[in-house]
């Protein structure tokens, strides 16, 4: 083998080692599994335009108040989307339009993973307050018992958007409890508010104060 060939072969060997490590990491990391949950087929071109880090975007197509869910679904995808809003075609990470479309469906559980004071200052209507700090005290059990939430229900978790990871933490716990139709609204409450969607204030009437 030539000198250059030797160098290139060793480069490929290093990449192969990294690929092996990445595969093990990918197989073991629950976040990776969360990114492609069972029962939710990957949707080519389905809405990922609203994911974290991709939409401080002036030309992002935020849904306007009162927009029909079908319009939201159609404009969510990178390409031409289905004419009918189909939640099963959504990715795990969703943007404002998809979150609004799910909210309009009415049968989707919304969970607010922010601190209680922020929740009380304003939250998505009918969202439950479940900050990560409350997980160890059985808040999710209360959610299922008092809120009547079933793990088979489609569930959306959100926090402040941006770099906040509270929604991911809560989603991982929900996944451990058997929730399979999970979505993370990555743009979070600020984007919901900025889009002009309805906002509710005050404490969680069902679960009460977070411990």
């Amino acid at each position, binding site marked *: *083998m*030539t*000198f250059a060939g*030797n*160098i*290139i*072969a*060793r*480069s490929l*060997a*290093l*990449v192969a*080692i*990294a*690929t092996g*490590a*990445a*595969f093990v*990491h*990918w197989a073991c*990391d629950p*976040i*990776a599994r*969360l*990114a*492609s949950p069972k029962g939710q087929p*990957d*949707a*080519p*071109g389905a809405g*990922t335009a609203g*994911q*974290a*880090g*991709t939409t*401080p*975007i*002036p*030309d992002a197509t935020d849904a306007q108040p009162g927009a029909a869910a079908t319009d939201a679904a159609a404009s969510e995808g*990178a390409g031409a989307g289905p004419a009918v809003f189909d939640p099963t075609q959504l990715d795990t*990470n969703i943007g404002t339009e998809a979150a609004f479309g799910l909210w309009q469906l009415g049968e989707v559980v919304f969970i607010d993973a922010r601190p209680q004071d922020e929740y009380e200052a304003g939250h998505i209507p009918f969202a439950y307050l479940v900050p990560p700090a409350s997980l160890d005290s059985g808040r999710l059990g209360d959610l299922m018992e008092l809120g009547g939430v079933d793990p088979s229900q489609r569930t959306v978790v959100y926090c402040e958007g941006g*770099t906040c*990871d509270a929604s*991911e933490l809560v989603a991982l716990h929900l996944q451990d409890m058997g929730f399979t139709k999970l979505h*993370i609204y*990555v743009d979070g409450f600020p984007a919901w508010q900025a889009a002009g969607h309805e906002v509710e204030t005050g404490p969680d009437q069902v679960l009460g104060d977070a411990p």
Partner: protein
Amino acid sequence: MSGGRAFGRSVLLVLRLVVAGLFIWAAKEKLESPLDFRANIDGFKVLPEHILDPLAFMVPWTELVCAAALIVGFWARSAALAIGAMLVLFMAAIASVLLRGMHVECGCFGDYSLLCKPGAVGWCNVGQNALLLAIALPVMIWGAGALSLDSRAARRGRGIPAAGPVDTVAVRS
């Protein structure tokens, strides 16, 4: 060993440690939040959806493995070559989104930025990667330099006939 040669080997050591340090930092930021990095590369809209999940792990792990190889000076030229290839791909991807008029976040160093202001990628990010490439280039050409496993192996192998090409030509006398 001449003073100039020792200085050159020391410079190579510094360059490879600088590149290694930056790439370990970059890999750490990406591996701390694979979902964010996946979202970042998805924003570039140059790759099919189904390979984003594995890629979100492969890129940082490749950065980490190559950086580790650079730190100890093992197959340093090959590690620098792999890093250089990644930098070229990153530059191409960034140029692609800029030419398409898109606004996406880099995700290069997680929530942080090295030389360019945080936020949407710009030509500054292309320049930043070109600078990193320029730092890695001497290691690709001349090898690991001082305090490396490569030079140690070369010293051991020196004088053995038909040893074949090694990764540390720079330390051959």
